[in-house]
């Protein structure tokens, strides 16, 4: 098992985790029937909870000698840069195809139906750099594993992936090539209201 939930890894009972979880909104049947979408935009509206989110990641990574924070487009952009700034690391955006100008490397990954592609700038990251990958949520891990592959292809060492929300792994489903995954909270269920 590669996942580490914050509440079970040093932050047991930390009230910030409850505040973060409470600030996330569940939108049923988005983008399609059956999906309970975990909407972090309400977390971004709650300044204290948003700050807690960033602070927890910063506290975790600031002494790990991390020089690269890679963020997955687009919601990874909302969390990654603040973490990068606080720990003194570069921020490297990992983007959908054709968004990054100049020379890129690309990595394809599987979707439920079909494939997609993630790109990173050539030269953004050097061999030997220690990197983390940040996104709002991890589901199957397809996007994160493409991100890991991109960074490893240029010789970076991916130390960990950090996500605000993640499911407890259904055995064998999570594909992170053995990389550790640190998750703040589990998905919210829709309550009666």
């Amino acid at each position, binding site marked *: 098992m590669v996942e580490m939930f914050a509440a079970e890894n040093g932050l047991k009972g930390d009230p910030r985790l409850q505040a973060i979880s409470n600030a996330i909104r569940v939108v049923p049947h988005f983008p399609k029937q059956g999906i309970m979408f975990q909407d972090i935009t309400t977390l971004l509206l709650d300044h204290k909870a948003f700050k807690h989110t960033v602070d927890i990641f910063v506290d975790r990574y600031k002494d790990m000698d991390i020089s690269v924070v890679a963020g997955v487009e687009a919601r990874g952009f909302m969390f990654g840069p603040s973490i990068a700034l606080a720990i003194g690391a570069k921020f490297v955006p990992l983007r959908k195809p054709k968004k990054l*100008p100049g020379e890129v490397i690309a990595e394809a990954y599987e979707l439920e139906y079909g494939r997609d592609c993630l790109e990173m700038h050539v030269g953004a990251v050097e061999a030997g750099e220690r990197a983390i990958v940040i996104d709002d949520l991890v589901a199957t891990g397809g996007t994160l594993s493409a991100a890991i592959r991109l960074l490893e292809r240029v010789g970076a060492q991916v130390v960990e992936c950090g996500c605000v929300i993640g499911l407890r792994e259904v055995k064998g489903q999570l594909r992170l090539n053995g990389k550790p995954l640190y998750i703040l909270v589990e998905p919210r269920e829709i309550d009666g209201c």
Partner: protein
Amino acid sequence: MATQDEQDPRISKISSAIRVIPNFPKPGIMFQDITTLLLDTKAFRDTIDLFVERYRGKDISVVAGIEARGFIFGPPIALAIGAKFVPMRKPNKLPGEVISEEYSLEYGTDKMEMHVGAVQAGERALIIDDLIATGGTLCAAIRLLERVGVHVVECACVIELPELKGRERLGDKPLFVLVSST
């Protein structure tokens, strides 16, 4: 003043950290690439600090950032000044109820969306993007916020392309930029 009066000493490092890519996304366009700025930890820090110094203590409760590069600069500013961050997104990305505003592109139109309930009437807001060109996207963002009764205090960008006259297109809305690129 719309830009820095006497140039703050941090500006020249910020300017030189920005990479220009010719002929992207199409021939004739000199693309201002801020990703190299994000790789320069001091220059990126200085960029955020310059905005935070300007807006801290001005009773701004909303920082709206335009997808996607506005998402890189907006949240650190929002966190530092104690404001909410509100993403202004392309169509069908935001779940739940949204309001949308159409705007013109060189060829055709596009749409920008904001969540219903993200902001309240009377709130004071900034709009952040990496760059202002024609001002079309910023104007759409201004309209979205004003439609729900928000007061847009200023638009703030890292880079301005003055030849494209975006500043005029914003009309009476002030624009603050760090770097003007001719």
